[in-house]
């Protein structure tokens, strides 16, 4: 079938970052339909490990949809159909033998709007390890929670009020709490769906700093509307337009010499 054949992406040379680091996520010929509407056309991309990949593009271009394919979050949407092949470490995520719950434990997600559980800060972070049985006992669980909060750069701010509700934190703190919650289950990949769109510039800078630290250990994929943010934090950038992946390449190359006219127009702010 024509739909299934991988499409060559218009890039002068393969991205350097992919050559340097092993690909963590590989998508081949991915199509996503919402009912009759096709949201993603025949998408193929490789996402490097221990690096930050940014998806940019105008609203409704399918970047969030593709992001949600990677941890099969689209399964929960009625009428959404995903075809094609997506592999994580070479294993097909649509494999019948693969448990979607296990997949989501390996592929953490941070959402656009901070969505801590209406429970205590401790419980927010402890929830994941608890349901996956990651902690041997109570002290072990406490260790995991503290470590996750430290990695998310939130521990110093909340160490005296671990039992207070997570919803009482500021927006930026809530988002870092959500990142800590995602880290706590020991994922390999962290998906971030416009994590800073609801935050002020200072909180945004804090999160970007955090992303920079986290990429030492994780494969991070971030969807963003801010070109500056993509340029600041990412190693690889992919530009989406109307459900098509238009261009993908090393961030510094892409922002200085985009190959496609549409990419250039978008980056320079002529549309979108």
């Amino acid at each position: 079938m024509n739909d299934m054949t991988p499409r060559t992406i218009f890039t002068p040379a393969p991205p350097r970052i992919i050559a340097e680091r092993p690909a963590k996520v590989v998508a081949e010929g991915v199509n996503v339909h919402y009912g009759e509407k096709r949201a993603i056309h025949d998408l193929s991309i490789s996402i490097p490990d221990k690096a930050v990949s940014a998806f940019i593009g105008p609203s409704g271009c399918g970047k969030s949809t593709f992001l949600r394919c990677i941890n099969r979050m689209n399964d929960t949407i009625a009428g959404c159909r995903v075809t094609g092949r997506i592999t994580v470490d070479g294993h097909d995520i649509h494999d019948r033998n693969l448990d979607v719950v296990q997949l989501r434990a390996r592929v953490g997600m941070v959402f656009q709007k901070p969505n801590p559980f209406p429970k205590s800060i401790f419980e927010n972070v402890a929830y994941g390890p608890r349901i996956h049985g990651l902690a041997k006992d109570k002290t072990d669980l406490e260790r995991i929670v503290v470590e996750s909060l430290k990695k998310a750069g939130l521990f110093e701010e909340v160490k005296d009020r671990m039992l207070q509700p997570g919803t009482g934190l500021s927006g930026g703190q809530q988002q870092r709490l959500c990142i800590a919650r995602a880290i706590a289950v020991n994922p390999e990949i962290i998906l971030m769906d416009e994590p800073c769109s609801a935050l002020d510039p200072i909180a945004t800078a804090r999160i970007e700093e955090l992303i920079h630290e986290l990429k030492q250990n994780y494969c991070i994929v971030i969807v963003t509307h801010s070109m500056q943010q993509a340029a600041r934090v990412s190693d690889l950038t992919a530009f989406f337009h109307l459900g098509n992946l238009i261009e993908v390449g090393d961030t510094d190359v892409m922002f200085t010499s985009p190959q496609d006219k549409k990419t250039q127009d978008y980056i320079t702010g002529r549309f979108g």
Partner: protein
Amino acid sequence: MSNNALVKKRYAAERRFKAYGLAAIGVTTAFLLFLILDIAIKAMPTFFVHEATLTVNVDPALIDAANPVAGDYLGLTKKALAAQFPDVTSRGDRKALNGILSAGAADGLQQRVLADPSLIGKDVTVPVALNSGADLYLKGYATAQLSDRQKAWLDALLEKGVISKGFAWNFLLNGDSREPELAGIKGALIGSVLTIIVTLALALPLGVAAALYLEEFAPKNWLTDVIEININNLAAVPSIIFGLLGLAVFLNIFGVPRSTPLVGGLVLALLVLPTIIIASRAALKSVPPSIKEAALGVGASHQQAVFHHVLPLAIPGILTGTILGVARALGETAPLLMIGMIAFIVDVPKGFTDAATVLPVQVFLWSDLPEQAFQSRTAATIILLLLVLFAFNALAIYLRKRFERRW
């Protein structure tokens, strides 16, 4: 300026709207006050009662110590009353004098003697119930039940200090009776409580489980659509239809004992089930989807996400809906008439399979009786029913506040 006129008009419209709103609230409040005042005034006589305190000689000739149950306690009481009026001698007059006593005048005496047989042969001072006509007369109501002589005797007793006024514990502690002064609502109250327990025990788990499945797990197809439409239709079915259903299914097919809290509770559970399902679904739907996504995002299974996060957040809404549904069931009369809960039952029910009636049916039963005292008891029962309903609503508000979480 036309612009200025426009602004003026806008403010005028706003003032007018506020006035309409105030008027609406005023009218409703007035109606409510009128209703409550009317009921309260009618109910007043029921809450207080006059009793004569007489010293009765427990005559061993009339009360056999070997078989005290068979004794003529009423005869003793009548004698004690006659002792107050030595000049009343003729047979007709004695009968008229005894007419101011209740048919249950000797109940207190009998209880005391049965509890302590050593009283036989001694003088015992006991409160003696008057009949409802005498009681009403003493409260200052016009009554056609008494003759002028009887009224004069009552006045004389009052003057002697034999008659005293007290809180009518009878009304709260007795079952139903043919005699208005003896009739109480304990039977109906216990019946209501037992019925509601059955209703809640059935409707709450069934309703919440159905709502959870339909809202969170069921595939969206024509079958679930049909089910959903039918649940909404069921909520609008007249309650008496559920009574007929209960009669046909529970009584005739399954042979559940009639007139019992068990069958009443079953029927009312059917009645409130759609309400609970609809309220629970609305509560589940109002939980932000981001919470569920967050749980799924850290690798919770669908069921874990629902049971750990969605359901706890929906509980205040579910409780509110349930309590409102139960409050409706508590005030329901029509379906219970169909399954025999309208029977005249003197005994206070002791279990789910004892014949019983419930508060609204008791109101219905008493409102039909001609005696003035029963009319007053009807009003008093309504007040009690309203108090129970207020208590339920207060509980609903308390639970909602208690479990509510903010974010």
